[in-house]
C-alpha cells in the first residue's frame, strides 16, 4: 500500500478555527483520535554505506567457485507500533499506581476493532508529483504482548514512545488528520520498554512547546502500477490543497526529513597516539 501525503502547520491559536473549517469542508464531525506510538530500532548495525562494493577486494577467491551473489546494502528501518487509545486508558493524575506485574496485551474480543498495529513506513519516493509518496505496511495485532513479540520477532530495541492527540476527518478519499505529538517529559531516556500503565493525560506535554498542530492530508493507494489510479489520488489530494488555500498551506515535506532508515554510525576509531 502506498500513501500520498501533504503536510501543513496550524498554530495553536488557529486550531479551533481550522477544526471548524475542516468540519465544514468534510461535512462531518471531527473524530477524536488518541494513539500511542512505540518506536523500535533493529539492533543490528547497518552496514557502512558502500561497504558491499569493496568487501571482497582482490581476487583471492577459489577459482571455479561461483562468485557469491553480491547483494546491495540492506537498509534497516525503524518500525513502530500504533496503539489506539481512548480517554479511559490513561492513568489518573492523583492516584498513585501500584506497580502491577502485567504485560501489554493486544487481545481484542471477536468483532472488535484491533487496537494494536505494527506499522512500517518506507522512505518517500524520489518522484516529483507534487505530493509525497511512500510505501507503508500495517499489520494488525489481535492477541499477545506486542513488546515481547517485537523483541522476539527480530532483534529489535525499544527506542521511545510518544502519543498523538488529534482529530480525524474523511473527505472523499482524503483522510485529514489534525494532530500534535505529546510526550512524557523527562522519562524518555530512562525507559527500556514501553509503559504498561499509561501516565495521566494531563502529564503529557506537547513535543512542540508552542503547542502547534500538524495537518496531514493522506490518500491511500493500493499500488502504483496503474497510473490512472495514482493520478486520481494525486488529483484529489491537490484539489484538497487548493480548497484549503488561504486556510492552511499544505506543502510537500522534505523527503529526507521523513527518512525512516537507521543511520550508519561509524564506530569510533581508536584514539591514535601520536609520538611525542
Amino acid at each position: 500500500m502506498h500513501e500520498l501525503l501533504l503536510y501543513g502547520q496550524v498554530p495553536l491559536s488557529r486550531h479551533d478555527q481550522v477544526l471548524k473549517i475542516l468540519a465544514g469542508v468534510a461535512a462531518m464531525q471531527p473524530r477524536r483520535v488518541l494513539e500511542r506510538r512505540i518506536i523500535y530500532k533493529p539492533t543490528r548495525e547497518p552496514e557502512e554505506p558502500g561497504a558491499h562494493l569493496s568487501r571482497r577486494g582482490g581476487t583471492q577467491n577459489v577459482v571455479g567457485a561461483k562468485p557469491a551473489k553480491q547483494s546491495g546494502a540492506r537498509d534497516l528501518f525503524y518500525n513502530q507500533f500504533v496503539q489506539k487509545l481512548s480517554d479511559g486508558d490513561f492513568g489518573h493524575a492523583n492516584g498513585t499506581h501500584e506497580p502491577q506485574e502485567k504485560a501489554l496485551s493486544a487481545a481484542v474480543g471477536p468483532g472488535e476493532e484491533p487496537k494494536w498495529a505494527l506499522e512500517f513506513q518506507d522512505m518517500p519516493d524520489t518522484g516529483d508529483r507534487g505530493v509525497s509518496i511512500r510505501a507503508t505496511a500495517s499489520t494488525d495485532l489481535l492477541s499477545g504482548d506486542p513488546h515481547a513479540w517485537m523483541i522476539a520477532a527480530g532483534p529489535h530495541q525499544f527506542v521511545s514512545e510518544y502519543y498523538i492527540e488529534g482529530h480525524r476527518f474523511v473527505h472523499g478519499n482524503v483522510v485529514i488528520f489534525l494532530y500534535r505529538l505529546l510526550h512524557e517529559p523527562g522519562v524518555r531516556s530512562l525507559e527500556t520498554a514501553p509503559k504498561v500503565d499509561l501516565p495521566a493525560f494531563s502529564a503529557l506535554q506537547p513535543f512542540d512547546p508552542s503547542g502547534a498542530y500538524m495537518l496531514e492530508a493522506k490518500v491511500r493507494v493500493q499500488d502504483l502500477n496503474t497510473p490512472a489510479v495514482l493520478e486520481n489520488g494525486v488529483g484529489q489530494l491537490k484539489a484538497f490543497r487548493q480548497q484549503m488555500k488561504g486556510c492552511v498551506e499544505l506543502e510537500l515535506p522534505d523527503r529526507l526529513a521523513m527518512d525512516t532508515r537507521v543511520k550508519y554510525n561509524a564506530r569510533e576509531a581508536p584514539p591514535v597516539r601520536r609520538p611525542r
Partner: protein
Amino acid sequence: MSDAASLTTVALRPWPAPTKDALSKEDLSAQIHQLTTERGHLRGITEKALQEEIDAGKSVPEDVMEGAETEPKKDAPAADERLKDIHRVRNEMHTKIEWAYFAAGNALNLVSLLLSRDPAKALDSGYTQMFREMNVPRGSFGIDRTVRIDDTQREEDSAKRRELVTKGSRMEALDWATDSLLQAATELETGIRKETKYWEEVLSISEKGWSLQRTRREARNAPFAVRYGLPEASNHFKARGLAPLRMNKDGGIILDSTLSLKPKTMRIRISENDKIVGTSHLPSQGGLGELAIEQSIQLARDSLFEEELFHEISMESRNLLAYGIELRNSVLHITTPALGGQSSHRKVLIDCASRDDNTLAGSDQSQHRLAQSIAEGLRLLLAHEHRMRLYRRSQVPPPLTQIKRQQPGPPLLRTLLGLFSHLTAADALHSYLNTLAKTLKSAGLDVWLDTSRDASWAKLTHSLEQSPMKDLSAIDQLLTLFTRPFDGTATISLPSTSGPQPENITIATRTFIGQPTFGAEHKISLPSSIIKVLDLEPDQSRQFKFPSTDEAQAYVDWILSLDIAHSVISKEYAGRVYSTDHEPRVSILSKGSMKNLAKEDSVLVLLEKGRLTVTATANTSLMTGTAGESFTWDGTPGKATLKNKVRSWIA
C-alpha cells in the same frame, strides 16, 4: 462736430483728374519732345541743374498750370505755397467727403435695417455695398424709445437684482437639498424597515434550527438561502434542498417556488380484492397561504424526504420484479402474502400523492394501521440509510484501486418484503407447531416447544448494550438488524425423549431478499436419536432445507409421526414390534386370546394438519376382513392418551 461745421462751407465739385499719373505712350513721347525743345537734350537735364534752376526760382514751366491760376505765376514762392495749400485743402475736403459718405451710408443702412422688420418693404437697395456683403439678417435690429435712467441707479438696481437672483437660487438649492434629504431619509427608513423585517424573519428561521447560508452568486434581494434538504440525501435531492430567501418590497420573505410547491407524501394503500381497505396519510397542514415561512420550509423538507423515499423505492423495485412488484402508472403494486393469516388477495400500493389529498380514502379503513405502519417503517429505514451514509462516509476509506466501489441502493423494499415473508413463514410455521404441540399434549405425549420470530430481536437490549460499535446510535444499530437476514428459530422436542434432556428438532427460518436464500427458507436440524429411525449414517448431515412452509410442515409431521410410531409405541411394546418399511407404521405382535394364534396389529400414526390420527388394523392372517380402529386427536383436551388408546386396542 467741428468737421461737420466746416463741411457746410464746401462746394461740391469734381476732383480734377490726375493727369500726371496717367500718361499714355503718345503723351510721354510728346512730353519728351516738349522737354527737348524747352531745355535741350535730356542729357543736359540733371538734378543739379534743375535744383539750380529751382533755387534761382525762374524756370517754372508756364504751361504746367492751366486755367485761372495766373496770379501765382508772378509770385513764385507764394504760388508754390498756394499750391500746397490747395492740395492740403483738397485732401482735407476729400477726407471729409469720404467721411460724410460713410456716415450717410451708415445712417441709410441703419434706417434700412430698422425698417427691414417690415417684410413688406424691400430695402435691400438701401444698403451700402459693404453692408450688403455683411449679410445682416433682416429685422435683426430694433430700436425703441426708453427713459434714460441714471447709471448709479442702474447699478444699484442690477446689484439688487443680482442679490435677488442669488437669494432665489440659493433658496431653490436649499429647497432641492431638503427634498433630496427628506427623500433619502424616507428611503433609508423604508430600507431599514425592510432590512429589519427581513432580518427578523431570517432570524426566526434560524432560531427554528434551519441552516442558513449565503447565496453563492450575489443574487439581488436574496443574500441568504435556507438549506432544508437533508444533508445525506442522494445527490439529486440534496441539490433541491436549497431555497433562496428573497426580499419583497416590504422586506418580507418571498416564498421560493421550491418552497411553495404542493407538499407530497408517499401514500401506502392496502388493497384487498381490488378494494382499498387502508390508506396512510400525513396530517394535512392546511393551505399554503396562511402558513408561516418556517412551516412551509418544514413542509418542503418533508415533501422532499417523501419524494426521495418514493424515488428510492421505485429504483429498488426494478430489481425486485421477481418478487411480484411492479410499477404501473407510477403506482407500485406489491403482492404480499396474506398477513395475519387471512387468505384474501392482498396488495400494497405505493405511490406519491399530494399531501392534502384525502379524497381517495375509502370508507373501509380496517387496515389503516397496517398502511400507516408500513409508511412509518419505510421512512425510518430511509432516515436510517441517511445516517448510515454519514457513518460510512466518516470511516477511513479503503485504498484506491481500479475497482470502483459501488454503493447499492438502500434496502427499503427488500427489508419490507423480507419482513413480510419472514413473518409469514415463521408465523405460519410457529402457529402450526403450536397446534401440533397442543394436539400431541392432548394425546398424552410430552412435547416441549419454543419459538422465536427472530433471534436477534429476542436479545436486542443485550446486544445493544454490548455493542462494540460505539459510533452508531442505538436506533441505527436497531435498524441495522432489519437490513440483515432474519433468523427465526423453533425448537420442538421429540415426543419419545421427553425428560430432563430432550432431543430437539430445530427449525431455523432464514429470510433474506437476495443471496443466497432469495426469500424465506426453513432449515430443519434433526437430533441424533432420529438417526436409527431414518436409517441415516451417523456422520451424515442432519440438516434439510425447505423453501416453503408447507414442505417444512409436512416434513415435521412425518418426522414426528415416525418418532411416535417407532420410538414411543415401540418402547411400550418392546420386543413385540417390528417395522416393515420407513413409514410411520409398526406392526405389533401379540398373543391372541384364542387358539394361541399370533395376532398382528398394525398401527399407523398419521399427523396431518395438526391432527393426530392413529389407526390400528388387525392383520390376522386367518381372518379375511380387516378390522380397523381409528382415533383422532385435534387438540381438544380431555381425551384418552395415545398409549391408553393403543393399549386398549392391542391388549
